[in-house]
């Protein structure tokens, strides 16, 4: 007979599903790609800035389409889960363009400051907002060093069932948790590859055999605001 504990362990990730079928919270330990259940997964991303052309916003469009956020004509209040940032060295004028989204930190300040625990980090490192207990205080937005979070300023329509959103709550990149839990890549990564840039690499940072772990180990990479010691899950190469 399978006990509840065994069931949870064997299923890898148990997901609480709403009546609408939307997956909101996933907890318990995620299962590694290689099926090793004793090792913890940490999902992360490596972005090769050299392959990220200025003017290309394929990843942004893909995320917007996948998760149902976008331009409503109010640029100051519209949500942006991912954005292209142009960085210029004021002396050399060297310019780079790169996508910035929730960095899924190991020590996320947004999770620390959230009074209700709505901001939380899954066992596999994905940082999410539980829309059921977010009270819309916006303290996480004050605390995030990456300006990765958006507040929903107005009523929403035509939401995606797998990415529920709500007026008066805070949201950010979910690392396409609904796709990742189904064994697929985040929409931005898939779109970047489909466009032929291959600038975004997704994988398990805790598995030394994954391509992302090898690349991170072999090439100098940078993390945004690494000085804060919060260990972002997103790294940048050739920045």
């Amino acid at each position: 007979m399978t006990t509840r504990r065994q069931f949870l362990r064997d299923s890898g990730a148990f997901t609480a599903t709403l009546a609408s079928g939307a997956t909101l919270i996933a907890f318990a330990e995620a299962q590694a790609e290689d099926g090793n259940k004793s090792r913890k997964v940490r999902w992360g991303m490596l972005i090769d800035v050299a392959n990220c052309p200025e003017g290309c916003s394929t990843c942004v469009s893909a995320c917007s389409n996948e998760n149902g956020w976008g331009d409503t004509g109010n640029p100051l209040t519209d949500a942006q889960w991912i954005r292209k940032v142009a960085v210029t060295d004021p002396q050399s004028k060297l310019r780079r363009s790169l996508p910035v989204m929730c960095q899924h930190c190991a020590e996320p300040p947004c999770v620390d400051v959230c009074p209700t625990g709505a901001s939380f980090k899954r066992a596999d490192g994905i940082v999410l907002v539980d829309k059921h207990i977010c009270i819309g205080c916006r303290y996480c937005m004050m605390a995030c060093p990456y300006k990765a979070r958006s507040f929903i300023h107005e009523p929403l329509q035509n939401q995606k069932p797998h990415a529920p959103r709500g007026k008066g709550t805070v949201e950010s990149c979910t690392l396409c948790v609904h796709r990742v839990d189904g064994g697929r890549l985040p929409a931005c990564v898939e779109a970047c590859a489909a466009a032929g840039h291959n600038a975004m690499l997704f994988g398990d940072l805790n598995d030394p055999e994954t391509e992302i772990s090898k690349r991170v180990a072999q090439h100098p990479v940078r993390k945004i605001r690494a000085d804060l010691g919060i260990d972002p899950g997103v790294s940048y190469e050739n920045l």
Partner: protein
Amino acid sequence: MKRTVYRELDLSPGFLLVLGLLGLIAAAGLGAAWYMEHYGHIVTGMNNQVVWGLPHVFAIFLIVAASGALNVASLASVFNRTMYKPMARLSGLLAISLLAGGLAVLVLDLGRPDRLIVAMTHFNFKSIFAWNIFLYTGFFVIVAAYLFTQMGRGFGRFIRPAGWVAFVWRLALTTGTGSIFGWLVAREAYDAAIMAPLFIAMSLSFGLAVFILFTGRSCALSGREFGQDLLLRLGRLLGLFIAAVLYFTAVQHLTALYAAEHHDIESFILFGDSIYTTLFWTGQVLIGGVVPLILVTLPTHGVSRVAIKLACALVIVGGFVQVYVIVIGGQVYPLALFPGMEVRSSFQDGVIAGYQPSLPEFLLGIGGVALALAIAAIGMKSLRFLPESLADEAVDPQRVPRTGAVT
């Protein structure tokens, strides 16, 4: 020693008029909150860069002033200054009222104010925000108990211990409020331990200024006397607190200026060409600090009641501006994703954000002020908070009358 006689306010037409006006303003604030809740924060001046707007400025000012309003009670119970004892009840009542007004604004500005019950049942104990929920509710309970020891029969021996607990708690409360900003590692304008003592100094100053004006007006409207010497003493104490705020403000900015990494944000606030530089020097430092300090420290013979009350009003205006500069000025400055680099994006990275307070935000904030004053007024009407007289002879029978003309 002469026994202090406390008496409820009379139900005069003047009282009803004031209460009616406060009720109308509070109702307008409630209407504004409903409007913001119904249409979303799109109807406010807030955006994804400036996430805390004018309501937070009002709320933080009221919360900070609440703990400072308890000064007079602490002076009486903790520091045993007998002349302040007749005002200790009123001090506690005003502290509770201001906190209630501030929290009402804070809660009604939430994206989901309907989820208040969630905030009271789900706690992340690593969050200073969650700690503050306990500090605020604890303040209500402790000050209410403190008032009970003062007003209930036979509890006199508990006044001093209750006063001590309230005193320590109010210091913890303001430390918590300051730490909401002090512990924000991501924002250059905050992330400093000095925010806690700065907020304590602000609370001492703002709270006393509000208390002096509130007590003076309550006495004037109810035909009670408010002693000249008492006012002068409170004014001199206010001077000490104004100096403390100026001191901590100076240390805050000098410390930041010393570190090259903070030069940009300090230049923006202190030497920029934005409204925040004007607000800092003219509103916060000059109107809220230097001028009232001069007004309350002028040689005693030259000090008039009007000068002290004007000083209190200036401290309140300047204090409000100070909270505005801290809350809004600190947010409009962009996050340093790549220190030393020029950054641009479609999400307002690298640019100074704009913020235009909207009418609903103002109404919500001023509604909180009205709510606080209405609670205090109803309290004074219902229970014996206000002495029959605060004349100098009544509060300090042993006093030596001051010589010289004071107008």
